[in-house]
């Protein structure tokens, strides 16, 4: 009796326990289904994962968030445990989002760094191009200056050549003037000689008739001053008479030169000296233009104490 009673109570208790367990399981299942926090976090994580910009930038952090969400889904918990798991999962998702955004910012920063470098490179290229253009400009200017210098140098050379030509012309003019002066002097000398000749003729009593053609004198004598004592070299002062003799001889008259010497030496020496003096006068006349074949010479020896004269006589053919 007692045994059947206990068995009956045991079955009843077992049924109760089973009923309670089934009830609890049913409540937990309905609680999990109705966990709005879990749904919110799951949607949030799915949204992050599906984001085209951020979804693949923080895989490790997203994985940790998924694990936290899985723990929340499995263990759920009640009260403080649930809140704790939600807190952890929510921050895991926030961390994943922040990490992905940080990676995105780092990539933007890298692009900006590249852009910064490109700006500097572009500026550098532009500066280099400007420098090249400036260099080209300087080169062209230098070339123009060189051409201008060449042109000025050519002009200077031409001017110098013109100056030299002018100088030569001036020299030529000076020479021509000198020649003209010499000619004038010669003409003056000729006039003077003619005047002296006229005086001599007048002194000899054979004054030329006015308007008649002048005739050659019979003889012209070179005085003692023609030669130095003991020498047979004509003095410069005798050149005028030589020229006069040559002029008087013209181109037809023959000349005879008779020279004398001082009586200071021997007869032979005096003859030789007189002969040398005659030859000196002959040489001077030949130099003055008288043909040598028309001249005859004679050394006559001593004539007196100071008789160094040379007499030149003119004769027709």
């Amino acid at each position, binding site marked *: 009796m007692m045994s059947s009673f206990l068995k009956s109570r045991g079955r009843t208790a077992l049924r109760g326990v089973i009923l309670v367990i089934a009830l609890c399981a049913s409540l937990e299942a309905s609680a999990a289904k109705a966990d709005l926090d879990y749904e919110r976090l799951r949607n949030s994580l799915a949204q992050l994962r599906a984001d085209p910009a951020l979804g693949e930038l923080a895989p490790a952090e997203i994985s940790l968030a998924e694990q936290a969400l899985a723990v929340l889904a499995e263990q759920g918990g009640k009260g*403080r445990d649930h809140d704790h798991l939600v807190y*952890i999962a929510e921050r895991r998702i926030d961390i994943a989002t922040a990490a992905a955004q940080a990676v995105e910012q780092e990539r933007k920063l890298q692009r900006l760094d590249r852009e910064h470098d490109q700006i500097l490179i572009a500026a550098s290229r532009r500066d280099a191009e400007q420098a090249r253009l400036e260099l080209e400009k300087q080169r062209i200017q230098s070339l123009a200056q060189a051409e201008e210098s060449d042109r000025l140098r050519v002009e200077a050379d031409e001017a110098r050549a013109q100056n030299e030509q002018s100088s030569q012309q001036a020299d030529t003019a000076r020479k021509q003037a000198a020649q003209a002066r010499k000619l004038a002097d010669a003409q003056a000398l000729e006039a003077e000689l003619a005047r002296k000749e006229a005086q001599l003729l007048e002194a000899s009593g054979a004054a030329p008739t006015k308007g008649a053609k002048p005739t050659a004198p019979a003889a012209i004598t070179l005085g003692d001053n023609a030669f130095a004592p003991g020498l047979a070299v004509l003095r410069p002062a005798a050149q005028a008479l030589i020229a006069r003799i040559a002029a008087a001889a013209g181109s037809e008259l023959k000349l005879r030169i008779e020279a004398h010497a001082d009586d200071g030496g021997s007869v032979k020496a005096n003859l030789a000296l007189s002969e040398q003096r005659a030859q000196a006068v002959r040489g001077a006349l030949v130099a003055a233009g008288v043909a040598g074949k028309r001249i005859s010479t004679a050394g006559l020896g001593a004539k007196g104490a100071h008789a160094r004269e040379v007499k030149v006589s003119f004769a027709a053919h």
Partner: protein
Amino acid sequence: MTVLRRNNLFVLIFFCVSQFTGCAETKPPLGLLDDAGHRVSAARSDGAQTYAPLELRGAEERLGFARTAMKAQEYEDATRYAAEAGIAADLAQARARLGKARERVAARSRENAQLKVDLSVEPDVQQGGGQ
């Protein structure tokens, strides 16, 4: 009677086991607390005070709760608060890094824009700036 004795024995064994496992689960979470403290310090060092003050304050608050619970020998609460303080510190640190990155991007964008104006240059590159 035999059944009752047997039930008492089971109850005794269950009590001992539950006491033993309970003591194991609620031992002082010293390592967890230290770790949370280090993570909060790291977040502060990374500039969370400037860039994520709310998150840093939440982490410090949770760390304080954990220490208080630790003193009160409420180890389960201390464990829970320490874990929350650590994860909040991690969030503060992540947002601080994000804030710094955004500042660098903004600064570089301004610098590039000014550089373009100063050098009168328009490089042939894609624009990388912007928030």
